[in-house]
């Protein structure tokens, strides 16, 4: 048994948490809570099984429970993007900001799936296990999330950016 195994995964847990909740400090709090839980439950992890997927499962559970219990500041699914000021600068930086903003407009359920697939590069089966949802649900959430992001980003790419004063 070696707890250093978990330490190696901290950077990836931080990446996922950051993408999931946005704010750096809220994200690190989520990582901390996840690690505490993981340390305490580490004997439940079976050597040979995928530790990273197990840690994502724990993070998902902690996140969902926090959301439920504390009414954490998690954006719920929104039908429309809120009006957000977009500076009329050009280039990749702007595009990345847009991606982040569009990501936040997804429901938490869709965001989890798209991040685990796109950023963490888990297989669909691993996502299904980590989130405890059927694989068909993984696929439908992924499909809806990607299409929504495409429409929101695509619209901006074609038409000039709207500057909100």
């Amino acid at each position, binding site marked *: 048994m070696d707890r250093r195994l978990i330490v190696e995964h901290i950077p990836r847990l931080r990446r996922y948490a950051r993408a999931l909740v946005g704010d750096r400090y809220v994200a690190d709090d989520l990582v901390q809570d996840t690690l505490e839980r993981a340390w305490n*439950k580490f004997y439940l992890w079976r050597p040979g099984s995928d530790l990273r997927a197990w840690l994502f499962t724990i993070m998902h559970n902690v996140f969902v429970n926090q959301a439920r219990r504390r009414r954490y500041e998690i954006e719920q699914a929104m039908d429309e993007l809120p009006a957000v000021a977009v500076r009329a600068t050009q280039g990749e930086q702007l595009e990345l900001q847009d991606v982040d903003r569009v990501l936040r407009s997804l429901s938490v359920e869709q965001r989890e799936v798209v991040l685990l697939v796109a950023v963490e590069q888990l297989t669909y089966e691993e996502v299904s296990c980590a989130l405890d949802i059927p694989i068909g649900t993984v696929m439908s959430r992924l499909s809806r999330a990607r299409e929504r992001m495409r429409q929101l*980003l695509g619209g901006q790419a074609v038409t000039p950016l709207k500057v909100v004063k």
Partner: protein
Amino acid sequence: MKPVTEAELHTYIDGALSEGARAEVEAWLTSHPEDAERLRAYAEQNALLRSLYNPVLDEPVPTALLAVRPHAWRRYAGAAAIFALGIGLGWAVRGMFIAPQILPVSLARLAATAHVVYSPEVRHPVEVPAGEEEHLVSWLSKRLGTNLKAPKLAPLGYELVGGRLLSGPQGPVAHFMYQDGRGQRLTLYVSRQRGEPRDTAFRFSQEDRVSVFYWVDGNFGYALSGEIRREQLLNVAEVVYKQLNP
């Protein structure tokens, strides 16, 4: 041409298709430009999301995160924790049915009582001393009807003092005693459990000054007791658990 499913399109983007299936999707895309455009956008999303968040990997990890140690789980006490634990357990032991179960507190209580009674003993702390470990283990194994082991805790600073047979509500109990260089004693209480074989998570109980970690593994309940801090005791309990479940 056989229509390509939406799932196949996504699997294609995420690089998880077999070569044959990939060729089929590519053939499909040449004749379906709208799908091709859509997939190009999805692939770009992947790339953008990665370039947005991969830099987090290069940030130094805050020391607060490296310093996390087991102790804060009480914050999650309650139904939410049991729910999460259930999922965690389900993941950890896929294929085995394990529901979060409420252990009889009496296991911790009985173990703590035995600890308090025997660990202060100077002249007769055990019935069979560690020098006769082989005899001790085979004797207790025979009485409990299983193959017991006395965990090796010397790497943690605890040497076996010996053991004894106790009487518990379910019959015979094996009781092992350990001691560190300063005379601090730990005891491991092993008893048969009533009912169907099952497994539980570690549970912690504070019985006055005695800390107890206890769990059920199959037909047997285990409880490790000591008058040491919970974190330290947890370390020992994890080693005990690992040695009993290699």
